[in-house]
C-alpha cells in the first residue's frame, strides 16, 4: 500500500539519508526511525517538532560563521595575545608572505628590499583596516566591532531561509498547516516514500530498489 506520491524534494531528502540509515537494517521498520532522526537533527530550538524557528535559528548559526574571517585575520597578528594588534605586529606577520619569490617574465626573482617593504605594508594594511580611529593599533573594541554579523539583503536572507532543511521538510510534512512538522507527520511522509521505494512490498529496502529510484 503506497502513500501519496512524494514530491521530488521529499524523495531527494529521504534518499539522502536512506543509504546511511540502512546500517540499521534493511527492514523499513528499522530504517524509518533513523531517517527521521537524521531529519530531527534540524530540531534545534528545544521545542519538539520542526518549526520555522528551527530554520531561522539555522540561518543565525550560518551567519555566526560568516563573520569570523576578519576576526581570525586580525587575531593571527596578535603576537603577544593582548587582544590588540599594533602595526608592527601586523607587518611582522605580513613580512613572511612578502618574502616569497615573485614570478616575472624573466623567471623567478627575489623581491628586493623596497618591494618587500611595499608588499609587507600592503598586506599589513589589510589587517589594519580594522583600525577605525587610525591610531595604528587595532584595539579590543575595534576587534569586537568586527564581530558584528554582516547585514544581508532581504532577498538573500529569504533564499537562505527557504533552503534550510527544516523549512523544506515543513513544506512537505506539515499536514495541518500549523507551521510545525511533528515527528509523527514526518514519519508518515517518510514511510510513504519508503513504501514507494519498496517495489516488491516485502517491507525491506534493498540496494537494488534504492538504485532504481536514484
Amino acid at each position, binding site marked *: 500500500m503506497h502513500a501519496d506520491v512524494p514530491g521530488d524534494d521529499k524523495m531527494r531528502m529521504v534518499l539522502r539519508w536512506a543509504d546511511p540509515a540502512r546500517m540499521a537494517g534493511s527492514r523499513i521498520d528499522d530504517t524509518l526511525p533513523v531517517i527521521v532522526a537524521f531529519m530531527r537533527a534540524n530540531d534545534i530550538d528545544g521545542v519538539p517538532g520542526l518549526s520555522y524557528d528551527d530554520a531561522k535559528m539555522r540561518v543565525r548559526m550560518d551567519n555566526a560563521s560568516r563573520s569570523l574571517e576578519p576576526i581570525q585575520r586580525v587575531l593571527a597578528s596578535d603576537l*603577544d595575545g593582548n587582544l590588540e594588534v599594533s602595526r608592527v605586529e601586523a607587518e611582522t606577520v605580513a613580512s613572511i608572505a612578502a618574502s616569497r619569490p615573485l614570478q616575472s617574465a624573466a623567471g623567478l626573482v627575489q623581491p628586493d628590499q623596497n618591494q618587500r617593504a611595499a608588499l609587507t605594508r600592503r598586506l599589513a594594511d589589510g589587517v589594519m583596516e580594522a583600525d577605525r580611529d587610525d591610531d595604528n593599533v587595532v584595539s579590543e573594541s575595534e576587534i569586537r566591532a568586527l564581530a558584528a554579523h554582516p547585514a544581508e539583503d532581504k532577498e538573500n536572507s529569504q533564499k537562505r531561509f527557504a533552503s534550510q532543511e527544516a523549512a523544506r521538510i515543513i513544506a512537505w510534512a506539515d499536514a495541518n498547516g500549523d507551521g510545525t512538522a511533528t515527528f509523527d507527520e514526518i514519519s508518515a511522509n517518510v514511510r510513504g516514500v519508503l513504501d514507494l521505494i519498496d517495489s516488491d512490498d516485502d517491507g525491506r529496502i534493498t540496494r537494488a530498489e534504492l538504485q532504481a529510484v536514484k
Partner: protein
Amino acid sequence: MTGKHFLCAVFALIALPAMAQETQPVELLQAQQRAVIDTLVASDTVSEAQIRWNSLLLADDLDGIPGLSERDLLIRGAIRDARLRAGRVAQQLRFDLNGDLSITRDELLPFERASAMGPIRNGTRMIAPTDVQAEEIARQMVERRLLADTSGDGILTLQELLAEPLKKYVALSELYDPSRAPFASLLDGDGDGTVTEAEFMVPLLAAADRMDTNGDGIISLIEKQQRADRPVPKTARQKQDRALMDALMPRRVCDLAPKSADAQVLVLGGYEGAALSNIVFGSEEQPAYVVDLVIPSQQPSRA
C-alpha cells in the same frame, strides 16, 4: 611536498639543531637534504633554486637584523602561536550567535542539539536516540565546551577563549625556549649563533654542484632524473617525518609500572565531542580482567 611542508621542514631543521644533533642527527641531515633536493627539483636553474632557498631564510628572518638568530625563531614561534590561537578562537566563535564575542549556554545548545538529535552509531548499527537521551547528550556536550569557562559564570568570554588554546599549545612553544634548544644549527658554520645568508646557502650549493653535472647552471630534466639523491620512498619519508617530529616534541617519561608479560595495554581515544559507548573487553568464553585504568588529563599526552 607543498610549500608549507617544505618551509616547516627547513624551519624544523634550523629550530632544533643542537638537541636534534644529539638525538636524531641522521634524520635531521636527511630532512635537510630532502628540503635542498626539493628546492633544486622545483627549479630550472641553480640561480632559481638559490632564490627559492634564500626566500626561506628571508621568511624566517623577522627581527630586522640580517641573518637567522634565536630571536627570529622566538618571533616565528609567536606567529605560529598567534595563528593557532586565532584559528582556535574563530572555531569557537561560530557558536557566538549574537556577535558579542562571548558564548552562552543558550547559544551553544542549538549547535549541540543538532549533533545530539541525529542517529547514534552503535558498533555497526545505527539507532535513533530518544528525546531524553538526545537532550542529555546535548547538555553534556555544552558542559564540555564550557570547561574553558574558568570564571564559572556560564559564559565563555573572549579572554577565556584566548587563554584556552595557549594552554593547549604551550608544549609546542617550549621548542623555542633557547635553554632547551641552543642555537647552534647544522647551518651555522662558524657557530656564532646566527645563520648568515652565505651559511644558509652552503648545503644548497653543494647539492647543486652534484646535480648540475655539466656545470652549466641549468638543472635539466635528465640531471634531475639522474641525481644521486633520489627521493626516498613514501613509507621511508613518513618514518623520517615521524623521527623528526619525535626529535621536535618534548619527551615525557611514562611513570606507570611496567606491565606483566601476559598483560595487554589497550589505548582508547576519541575525537573531541565523540562519545565512546559500550566498550567490551574480552567475551564470555575469554574472560578479561582490567588491572589498571589510567585516564590521562585533558592535556593530550604522549607519555
